[in-house]
């Protein structure tokens, strides 16, 4: 039996995977191909390796602070005021991410299935379901993420259909792109794969925290393999210009699936994606609320109400694809900073500070 309020460390797997696989999965190929052409898969691989290293650093930092939440680490490390300021920045980032995920998913719905529907109808549906998850806390949210992942896992089998048509000679010759192009691809991929930094916040709620690290690495490995497979398949299935012209690489690939009783499969996939996006939004709302209630003494449900209002207003304000593209660009830059650069910087700071403290102790003695 686990301690009260704590969840099993294995939930890290589902929490991380739902944070990393969202709308990015439906449309990441285009940006990578633009940067690294048919060597885009090398970028995916390289970004994956970087992410593994960053996870390693994150857990080194967490281990030093007894697996506290990043919000608490900030306050302990930088003091009340500056720590809170950093926390506020983090909260803004997570709010931006939720906006991006929500609005982009609704964009998919508008383009593919319901061009005439009102955006707010879907948003309220999301908010009600997220409220349900939040009322149960991290315990319910983590379970929801497991169930939703399992419900979606069979979709991987659908890739057999485009695989049949793929011609992998398109991948040759390997390493034709220069290092600069590969790096450009890595920047594009960084935003897609980002989101693993969620472990900074959830680890404080887990029992046997020393075991979280291996689960986190496993989750990251599965996500990396999935993105790599997806990229290889897209490169084989499409010809180059086709990837560049297509905003929704993954969904268009599923258009090839046809059953006698079901003409088009991507409609089902899009509706299944609803529950994945839902689980993702539950997690980010939880992270946001955890942060806000640490800074201002507000009840959680009021914070959530404010968050919903904010999301509703902003996503209503974004009307065209261009505006969405601006938000996407902003997010992709932020994601690289917050998912890759910041954990690295933080671990360096922690290393330096602990070095300084040890020396001081030595001097005092």
């Amino acid at each position, binding site marked *: 039996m686990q301690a009260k309020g704590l969840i099993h460390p294995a939930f890290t797997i589902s929490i991380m995977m739902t944070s990393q696989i969202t709308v990015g999965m439906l449309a990441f190929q285009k940006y990578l191909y633009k940067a690294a052409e048919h060597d885009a898969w090398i970028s995916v691989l390289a970004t994956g390796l970087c992410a593994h290293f960053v996870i390693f650093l994150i857990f080194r930092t967490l281990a030093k602070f007894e697996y506290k939440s990043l919000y608490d680490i900030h306050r302990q490390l930088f003091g009340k005021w500056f720590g809170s300021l950093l926390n506020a920045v983090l909260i803004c980032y997570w709010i931006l991410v939720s906006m991006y995920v929500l609005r982009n998913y609704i964009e998919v719905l508008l*383009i*593919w299935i*319901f061009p*005439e*529907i009102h955006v707010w*109808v*879907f948003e*309220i*549906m999301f908010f*009600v*379901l997220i*409220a*349900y998850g939040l*009322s*149960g806390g991290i315990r319910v949210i983590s379970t929801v993420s497991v169930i939703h992942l399992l419900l979606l896992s069979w979709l991987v089998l659908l890739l057999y259909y485009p695989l049949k*048509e793929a011609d992998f*000679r*398109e*991948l*040759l*010759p390997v390493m*034709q792109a220069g290092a600069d192009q590969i790096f450009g691809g890595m920047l594009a991929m960084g935003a897609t794969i980002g989101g693993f930094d969620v472990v900074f916040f959830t680890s404080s709620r887990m029992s046997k925290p020393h075991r979280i690290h291996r689960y986190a690495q496993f989750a990251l490995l599965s996500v990396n393999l999935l993105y790599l497979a997806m990229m290889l398949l897209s490169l084989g299935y*499409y*010809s*180059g*210009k*086709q990837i560049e*012209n297509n905003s929704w690489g993954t969904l*268009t690939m599923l*258009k*090839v699936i*046809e059953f006698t009783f079901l*003409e*088009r499969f991507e409609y089902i996939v899009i509706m299944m994606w609803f529950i994945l996006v839902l689980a993702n939004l539950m997690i980010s709302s939880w992270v946001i609320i955890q942060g806000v209630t640490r800074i201002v003494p507000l009840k959680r449900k009021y914070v959530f109400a404010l968050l919903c209002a904010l999301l509703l207003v902003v996503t209503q304000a974004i009307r065209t694809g261009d505006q969405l593209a601006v938000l996407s660009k902003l997010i992709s830059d932020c994601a690289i900073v917050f998912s890759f650069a910041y954990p690295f910087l933080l671990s360096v700071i922690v290393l330096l500070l602990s070095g300084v403290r040890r020396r001081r102790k030595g001097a005092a003695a």
Partner: protein
Amino acid sequence: MIRGHSWAGKAAVLLCCLAVAAGCARQKIIDNLGIVIALGYDEVKEGNDRIRTTIIAYQETDGRANPVRTSAANNTSKGVRTKLNLKMPSQDVIGQVRVVVYGESLAKKGIINLTDTLQRDSEIGTNVYLAIASGSAKSIMSASNKQDMSMGEFLFELIRKNEKYGVVPSPSLHYFLNSYYRVGKDPVLPFLKRGNREVSISSLALMKEDRMVGKLNEDECFLLKSTMGNYHFDSLELALSLKHDKPELPAVSPLFITLTNIRTSSRIRLVGQDDPVFEVRIRVNGQLKEISEQINLEKGAEINALEREASAKITELYEELYGRLQRLGTDPVGFGSIYRSSVRIKGLTSKQWEEMYKRARFRTDIKVEFTNVGITS
């Protein structure tokens, strides 16, 4: 705990309300829809309009779904909807389109703008078949057939069968765009012809980028498709001329042999870079089912001699085909794409390849093998 319950109750009520609200989107009741299954585009000059669009749609009349053909002219294929709506009582939906036919004169000028709108449309799948009509698409779509099928369905089944078991390479929207957008590869589409009370695939239309530049005849279709990959075919007829110099075989000319249940495998490699040289290795395996003369096939030596004759003959045909494709400047096999993937040149353009293709040479290694000669020897 009790608070939690009331939360859930309120949420459930709100969700129900939303479900009702979501139902307020525009309804599409199947009885009132015209389900378009075939589209045709032709070049016209009617006032300001340049493109005539023909559609075949299933509509409900007298309690049955009947195929109805309508056409109107406009400047864009989607803009024509306004005019078609003025002619049709039903709301047309294009999610079930199976075949898109382009008129010959339009195809000679280029069809990429009209296929681009198909891929842009989220409603249309990528398995839609494209074809080119001799004369106009409208005349093909208004033709009747002996099976009395709806023309849209007839064309779809006709192309599908010949793609799966026959000599037509896949003409789906995905393959068309894939070849069009690939450097060093050109699309190829079936060419439809209207006869007396019948419509048939008379040959393959060779495209250069999105323009039709020539046609293959029926025999060449087999050669082209078998070069493009590994496929199954129903049958192949070869005309051999046997000379006196073969001790195993009588001198007969012409001698016709027919292979059935054919499997082909093809492998193309780049062996020379500057003036590209391709090595084309093709194996044609099939059962020898019919010979136009009585030849004793009891001995292995005779069968082998016949195989050698057939291989020599078919090699000639293949080389002739590659020469013709080169002269037309079209590359449906994708030699250019093989070149691009074998050589480290960055950013090979279609223009560069076009120049190189003219100088390309082909080294052929082609063998016909009889898996057996039927149940008699």
